[in-house]
């Protein structure tokens, strides 16, 4: 059987040739994504701003405007109604009422009563009601987890490799996270707890590629002491390219299936991870690797710290 080789043997792409262009593009994109996120904000779900969200499956397709006016008649503040997963499924978002927790309860109850009375056969799929206090805590915890993950992984890379690699990892994660933030700000997809889980996964997975490439760079730095840094980085990238492509594809296959046939509730989570894998694959080549050049990684970077290990490595 002839096996599929997406990356032919002896591939030799001069990745580093475009590194300046790539860095300019990446920096501009990162700045654009962050400023757009800051300017436009996110479509935060009830998890992070409080309020209620009710998901309803109707027996037959309904007139959205009619539903909207019926919800408005309940005078529960500015409601938002969105289709969710199909023409018969809708999600009704209600803002946090000023009257506190008891009022929130009443708002959800009223809405449910209206739906069951006006739309026979409608099914209340889920109700989420989050108070302002809890939503603040959830948002804070989510942000903390992402920041700690970024720092924790960078410190780990620093300990396992060298400080330049730790900094490179941190910049890479920051780049990837900014991109996805920008995407969520742009697409207006709802940011909920699941999306935070996706961000953390992206932090882990985007680093997966980077670590594999860093690992090869370290190996080659020890092996080819006389090689200049740019050809060495190119060599390492090419040697790991087949693996980068195959692994990214398997993960993307699994995620694409999840997005297409999986449960609607976790579509946002799957999409965020899917994008994270795409962005992470790009950044492991064009963000994490060029950074090492500016931070001055040379073959000596490893010799100094591990003088004992060097002879064995040279022999291999």
């Amino acid at each position: 059987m002839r096996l599929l080789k997406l990356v032919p043997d002896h591939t030799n792409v001069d990745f580093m040739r475009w590194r300046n262009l790539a860095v300019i593009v990446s920096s501009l994109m990162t700045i654009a994504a962050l400023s757009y996120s800051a300017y436009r904000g996110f479509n935060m779900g009830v998890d992070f701003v409080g309020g209620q969200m009710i998901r309803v499956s109707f027996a037959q397709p309904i007139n959205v405007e009619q539903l909207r006016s019926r919800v408005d008649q309940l005078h529960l503040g500015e409601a938002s109604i969105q289709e969710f997963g199909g023409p018969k499924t809708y999600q009704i978002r209600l803002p946090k009422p000023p009257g506190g927790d008891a009022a929130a309860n009443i708002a959800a109850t009223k809405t449910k009563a209206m739906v069951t009375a006006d739309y026979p056969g409608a099914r209340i799929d889920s109700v989420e009601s989050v108070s302002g206090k809890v939503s603040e805590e959830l948002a804070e915890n989510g942000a903390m987890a992402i920041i700690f993950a970024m720092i924790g992984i960078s410190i780990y890379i620093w300990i396992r490799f060298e400080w330049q690699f730790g900094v490179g990892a941190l910049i890479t994660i920051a780049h990837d996270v900014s991109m996805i933030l920008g995407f969520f700000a742009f697409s207006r997809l709802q940011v909920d707890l699941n999306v935070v889980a996706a961000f953390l996964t992206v932090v882990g997975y985007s680093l997966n590629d980077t670590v594999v490439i860093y690992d090869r760079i370290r190996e080659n730095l020890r092996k080819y002491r006389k090689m200049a840094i740019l050809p060495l980085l190119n060599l390492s990238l090419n040697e790991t390219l087949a693996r980068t492509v195959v692994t990214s594809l398997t993960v993307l296959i699994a995620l694409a299936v999840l997005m297409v046939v999986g449960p609607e509730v976790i579509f946002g989570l799957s999409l965020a991870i899917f994008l994270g894998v795409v962005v992470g694959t790009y950044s492991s080549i064009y963000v994490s690797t060029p950074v090492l050049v500016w931070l001055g990684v040379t073959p000596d970077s490893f010799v100094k710290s591990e003088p004992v290990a060097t002879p064995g490595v040279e022999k291999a």
Partner: protein
Amino acid sequence: MLDFPRWKVLSIWAIVLIGILFSIPSLLPPSARQHWPSFLPHSTISLGLDLAGGSHLLLEADLQDLTKQRLQTMEDTVTSEMGRGDPTIAVSDVSTSGGRISFLVTDPTQVDAAVERMRSVTQGVGLTGTRDWDVGVVDLNRIVLTPTNSGTQEALKNAMTVARDVVRRRIDPGGTKEITVITEGSDRILVQVPGVENPEELKRLIGQTARLEFKLVDLAADPQQVQQGRAPAGSQVLPMADGAGSMAVKRRVMVSGDQLESARQGFDQDGRPTVDIKFNADGARRFGRVTQENVNKPFAIILDDKILSAPNINEPILGGNAQISGGFTVQSANELAISLASGKLPVKLNVIEERTVGPDLGADSIHKGVVASLIGTAGVILFMLITYGRFGVYANIALVVNGFLILGIMAVFNATLTLPGIAGFVLTIGAAVDANVLINERIREEHRRGRKIIDSVETGYREAMHAIYDANVTHVISAALMAYFGSGPVRGFAVVLLIGVVTSVFTAVFFTRMLVALWLRNKRPKALPI
């Protein structure tokens, strides 16, 4: 590489078989589970509320309510302590404003005695010698009682312990349902009830403090003053539950819900729903005595500081049975009966987070999740097969074994599978082969450089290990943080990812290495099909 001792082969197979064995009960439909032999493992993965359907409620103690209650109790204590003979201490201007109690001792020579009496009723907290109230004197004869921080914390702790039990009894009077009621932090209770049809009823049951009190109506009160909310000393003005005005009642509690033996929903002679209560021996005695002394006077039945009704005492009620009416429906009478029977909540609880998922949506999610897992696995398997041939087959066997191992480990720890957990599972399938991709690519590379077959395989596994190790640690860091900071469903996602990292290293590295070694040893291939 070929040196793969028999004990290693056996132990790897043993781990794989045990893992599969543990995963099977979770995969069987409930009906088939009964036929599963009892000597085999039978713990299963539990489904999160987002898959099984049910309600998740986070309740928070109302600290203001607790503080108010403590002040009231202390105020009563002040009155009774000072009113005790030998000799009584005359006090005036008792106030609870500003979150503390202060009162004037009329006779300045009695100030020290009053302080002494108040000190004796405060209680020590913990081992540090702190009391639950600070007793101080200002302006020579004014005594001020301030609740201490540790006293408040202690009171909260005690209240939460009681509240947790009360909540459990209210939701599940029979003690038969699989519900979760746990305290979180210092002032919260997490309630999870699977398969609940009506979360509103649940919230009503928990939302009611159910403090039932019987007090005499103060007939001497001036109706005009009562309307303005003012009551004579020793009395208080309380609103009627139906909103029709208010009434002055004596502060002294005749008998309270603490002295109940049982409460049931019943009907009065006109067929209207009521709550029938029965006092315990002590309560019955007190109720009998007070009704005897107050025949032909009205008394008020008060629930959570609202007057339900104020019937007249026609004759002494001696048997300890009473009937509460007050415009109930059968359902609300039933709910009140359950609440009364389970005891009053020591502190008011507010619902600060609710997540309810209908059983249909949950079943739909499971179905779609399973389909996605199967198609995703099939896609990855096909891709690995056409990319790596024989080595892809090994990776695929490892992948399937990995799936079983994840389920098996989750079942052993009785872990909860949530909807994001399904995503974690599918993602793990995609990522688990990464170790094999690293190994196989490295083998290809080493072989291309001219190494012999066995040498290539050996070097491939050895060199790939560094990258596999580092890459997996990054996953562990992010998944561990997710498990630590995340709540419910997200934690379920993190748990699956964490387990997946561990099992995938085992299957992708040790298990495939064994398969490859056995093949190389038995077949001695002339070419490397990779």
